[in-house]
């Protein structure tokens, strides 16, 4: 049962019936799902959630899908891991990693895709499509295959080989575009006017975006129904950050959190593509689009559609923003792997480097309970660390050679 009342424009408040539409006809503002929170409050409970499936569908009262799970590969309910070694290294207190690398296609995009394609089936679409910086491509191709939908996935041609292979293997159409993500996005926006396809992040975007809220729900549930003090979230279009914020607020609204949450939300971008961070750092109200140049290709959106909402969420919650260099990204990938045993893709490197930077600046404090969102797996962007790490030594298969390389006394210590 869905508790959706309408779709509402975030800019001007005009309301629309539930349909595969994504912008306000009047002002082009993005539409957002409006819920009947009183009805949700009456229906939802911690016990009901605890008895639900170990996936995003345990929160179906708060998702805009009627028949759920319609498309389900098991997205969600990923580990929340206490990160004491990382915290100590950065001079922080209580730090947790929300490890979303363990999703079916190894990024948080499985959450949004499961919601989007479930809705697409309800609307009767036969073809799934998306514009992607890589992770969404994986997720859409896989979920479309599982649901028996045809798929068209559009990506920039310069994407990591790994992300192309892990998309194409599902057998759908992978269309590589000579251009950056913003070019791909514009093409898809125009194609969506011509073909009756479920473009998950164009005409289904209003529903798609709601899937990211489950990252906040799970975090609170895994902390024993408490909100953290501070979260660090990677930003590409800004949708994920905006929805994590919304998720915590909703939990209080429907009675699942006892105390009103005051979660400080900080955003992470790569310096080579940091339009939202630049607006924050420059104290500007205008987000200027940029041409991306960073190894963090999954975050390489130069013209972020939800950038203004992400900026507002960071400002209103007194969070912070950092823009980190490619070298800092690689160092942070290695730091997280070395201290916590979690291998993140470049987006995770951006997030951990931002955690380090904001900790050093005193924006993130030692007395805060911090949750860091690691949204994609390191195997997706091996190129970032190839050449940086490798065998400690290469030797012939003899004891002597081993002892020449390692001091036996040291080995027994």
């Amino acid at each position, binding site marked *: 049962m869905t508790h959706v009342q309408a779709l509402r424009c975030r800019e001007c408040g005009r309301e629309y019936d539930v349909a595969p539409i994504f912008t306000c006809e009047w*002002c*082009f503002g993005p539409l957002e799902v409006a819920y009947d929170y009183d009805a949700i409050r009456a229906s939802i409970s911690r016990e009901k959630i605890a008895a639900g499936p170990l996936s995003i569908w345990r929160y179906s009262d708060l998702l805009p899908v009627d028949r759920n799970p319609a498309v389900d590969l098991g997205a969600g309910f990923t580990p929340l891991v206490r990160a004491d070694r990382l915290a100590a290294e950065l001079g922080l207190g209580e730090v947790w990693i929300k490890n979303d690398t363990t999703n079916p296609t190894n990024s948080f995009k499985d959450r949004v895709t499961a919601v989007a394609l479930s809705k697409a089936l309800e609307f009767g679409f036969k073809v799934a499509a998306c514009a992607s910086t890589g992770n969404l491509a994986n997720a859409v191709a896989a979920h479309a295959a599982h649901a028996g939908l045809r798929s068209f996935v559009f990506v920039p041609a310069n994407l990591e080989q790994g992300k192309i292979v892990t998309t194409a293997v599902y057998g759908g159409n992978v269309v590589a575009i000579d251009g950056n993500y913003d070019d791909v996005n514009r093409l898809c926006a125009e194609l969506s006017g011509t073909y009756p396809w479920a473009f998950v992040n164009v005409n289904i975007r209003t529903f798609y975006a709601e899937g990211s809220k489950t990252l906040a729900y799970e975090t609170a549930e895994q902390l024993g129904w408490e909100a953290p003090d501070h979260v660090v979230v990677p930003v590409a279009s800004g949708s994920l950050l905006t929805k994590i914020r919304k998720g915590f607020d909703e939990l209080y609204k429907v009675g699942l959190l006892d105390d009103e949450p005051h979660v400080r939300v900080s955003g992470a971008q790569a310096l080579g593509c940091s339009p939202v961070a630049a607006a924050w750092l420059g104290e500007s109200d205008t987000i200027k689009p940029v041409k991306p140049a960073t190894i963090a290709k999954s975050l390489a959106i130069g013209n972020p559609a939800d950038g203004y909402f992400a900026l507002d969420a960071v400002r209103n919650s007194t969070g912070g923003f950092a823009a980190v260099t490619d070298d800092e990204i690689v160092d942070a990938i290695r730091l997280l792997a070395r201290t916590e045993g979690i291998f993140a893709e470049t987006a995770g490197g951006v997030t951990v480097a931002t955690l380090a930077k904001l900790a050093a600046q005193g924006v993130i404090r030692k007395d805060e309970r911090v949750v860091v969102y690691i949204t994609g797996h390191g195997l997706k962007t091996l190129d970032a660390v190839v050449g940086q790490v490798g065998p400690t030594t290469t030797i012939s298969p003899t004891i002597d050679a081993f002892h020449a390389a390692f001091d036996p006394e040291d080995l027994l210590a």
Partner: protein
Amino acid sequence: MSVTVRIPTQLRELSGGAAEVALVSGSLADVLAALDAAHPGFQGRLFGDDSELRRFVNVFVADEDIRFLDGLATEVADGTTVSIVPAVAGG
């Protein structure tokens, strides 16, 4: 010769359903003014009360975002295509 303006689905009711409208060349501001003259209503939909383009309206001249060009002062030469595209989410 003329320029072509591609109309997004959301605004085609204003253009009588047409996906493309041909107009005379000039600055982008001139072209959009001519669009409103030919099909009244575009002005109010594309521009806010401050006479600036609304922040979720993206305009491309020859496939380039006008914020990388001269904004509304960008020259739209004969034979060029102008696209009006709503901002969309990332992936």
